[in-house]
């Protein structure tokens, strides 16, 4: 599976990629990723490309990804460019999601659990339990779980 995660600094794009990686490792599936940070912290793009169960490098080319997870609406077109033409794995964190998270959970970083929920719902490789297994080790498991379950709806 080829996966792209796009966000801006501080949104949790890197944490999200690590959750997916841990889910893979728990299932003994090889996982690679490639990320660009640096100036990303300053509000710029955080881009994580992942290969699950394939490849030598973690790089994913445009028009080859199975899923794109976009945590900032500024990157809709860029995110779409990575998707294979025959798939519908486009998952976006909308502004209204952000508002709900900040209001109900108090920190925008819970966005990644919500997106994870939407991702898990749409694919066949990982189950809900795979995700919960990883999330339950988090400090704020309760809030992550609320966000994750909202993503499953």
């Amino acid at each position, binding site marked *: 599976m080829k996966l792209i995660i*796009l966000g*801006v600094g*501080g949104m949790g794009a890197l944490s999200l*990629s*690590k959750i997916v*990686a*841990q889910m*893979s*490792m728990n299932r003994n599936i*090889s*996982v*690679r*990723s*490639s*990320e*660009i*940070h*640096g*100036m990303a*912290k*300053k*509000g*710029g*793009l955080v*881009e994580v490309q992942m290969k699950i169960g394939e*490849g*030598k*490098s*973690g*790089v994913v*080319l*445009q*028009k*080859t990804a199975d899923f794109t997870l976009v945590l900032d609406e*500024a*990157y809709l*077109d*860029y995110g*779409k*460019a990575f998707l294979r033409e025959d798939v519908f794995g486009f998952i976006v964190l909308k502004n209204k999601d*952000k*508002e709900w998270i*900040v209001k109900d959970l108090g920190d*925008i970083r819970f966005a990644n659990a919500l997106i994870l929920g939407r991702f898990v719902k749409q694919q066949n490789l990982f189950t809900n339990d795979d995700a919960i297994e990883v999330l339950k080790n988090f400090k704020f498991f309760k809030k992550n779980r609320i966000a994750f379950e909202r993503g499953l709806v």
Partner: protein
Amino acid sequence: MKLFLSGNEAIAFGLVEAGVRFIVGYPGTPSSEVIPTAMDIKKRFGIKGYFDWSVNEKVAFEEATAASYSHIGSAVVMKQVGLNVAMDPFMNTAMTGAPGGLVVVVADDPGPHSSQTEQDSRFLAFFAKIPVLEPSTPQEAYGFSKKALFLSRNFEIPVMIRSVTRVSHSREDIEVGRLDDLQVKPNFIRDVDRFAATPHFRLILHKELNEKIESIKKLKWFSDFEEYFEGGVLIVTSGVSFAYLYDIVKDNNLEDKLKLLRISMSYPLDLEKLKKAIDKTGSKRVLVIEEGYPVIEMQLKTKMPTVEGRLSGLVPNEGELTIDKIGEILAKAGVLNQKSHGFVLPPFKRPSLCPGCGHRSAFYAIKQVFKNKAIYASDIGCYTLGLNLGAVDTVHCMGASISFGFGFDKVYSLFGKNDQVVVATIGDSTFFHSGMPALVDAVHNNSKLILVILDNSTVAMTGNQTTPADKYNQIGEKTKSIEIERVIEALGVEFLKIRDAYDIDGMINDLKHAKDFVLDNKVPAVLIFRHPCVYSGEGLENNIRFKNIYINKDLCTGCRVCVNQFECPSLIFDEDRKKVFIDVATCIKCGQCVKSCPFDAIKVEQ
């Protein structure tokens, strides 16, 4: 134990597992995660070792050299431009050797993504005559780090691990080995002809170095080449380019068109052996694709003038060799039918200081006082982004703000109007790194420079590493805090003011006084504008946080003064309504923007 490690984390695991017990360096993207990982390993596995940050790369290199002289496995870690800072000891340690082993971890940044240059450190390995290993994946970064110490110890020569952004910042599931606490004993054996060599003995050491390199050239594994696939066109490659080429061949079914010959040690190269290996493939056409400068290609060209690569114009001479770029090169060479699908670029989003960053308030105050009249020399760090507030005119290399400020002031004082104000801005860690010597010069030679030290008490840009001003290191060990103000006073600076960078009126006042002082006295003034980095957990938790901050829509005229002059990314101009609004997802409710509105439209609730 299987872990999802970045290339940098993998290097730390490899080094410590191999027996390296002394690791020092200075933070710099993309190298910064090696030392924090080593420190975590030390704490987690109860390993005895010295792993920590040094004040700069030159100092780090010398510290690690002495540890290696004492027969302790050592490593020094830096980004590519950091090696420029460490060049002097780097060249010398190549000569004197490294008895306990010394691994020089350098992360290059082709692109560049977050650097001033995209220089290729392999050239500096070539220049110093030390071996350089090029991992292509995090898994190899782990394995090569172990091999590097082995090679370094056996030949008593520094060995470079050359990583690049795409290896350092890629991740892979890696099975790491056992981490045991070793019994190591320092054993410095006096040998003045080597460790305190006069020029006469340096000649002898140079000969020894040449002999070491000749032996390493023939060494099994290190001098071996890996061959992949059975095609007629041969590509000689190394490092991350190898991983990309491998994936391109697999994804495009080019197994019968291309053959890859992968080099792990790009210097020293056994050119006779390489030529034989190439001849044996029977390939009529040989391309060299390597990330960085033509290091392999230049060496190979002496034996095979027809190889194609950067020197022949096939491969571009600047920019990162991304997988897309390599695809284009193969298409240009006629070996890949790549359909051009029109690469979509991400929308450009200007990097900006974080919402609530004290540097922004400081730059705002500086700009309010000096407008466009001062010359603004700045430095390497987050505050480079003072560019967005129009308060940065130059950014060059670590510490150069003060020396540039000195140079500007001297020529304007001598040949121009004597009232030209020069404002240098530098961060706390950069001041310690290489700003201090320049300030000595400015004080000693009467420069009327205004130096603003933007002190956020951390190395913020590279991920909040500790500075010499900290009282504890990353893993809670006690350190001695070096107070910047005491350094400034000790250097003989006569005007020093310290202010919280959230006190905009106070800073404006200090800057005006500093201006009068330097013009009257023709000596430097130093201001420390201090506010903890809000990107650090502690800084954010302890930061002032208003209950609410909002725009009074009736008062907002849509003039954009706040957006343009204060430039906080949480202030967003709504093009439809012609009013500013506050982005709740990024705003930290610090209230610093209030001062920037000429119509008092930004309101806070206590």
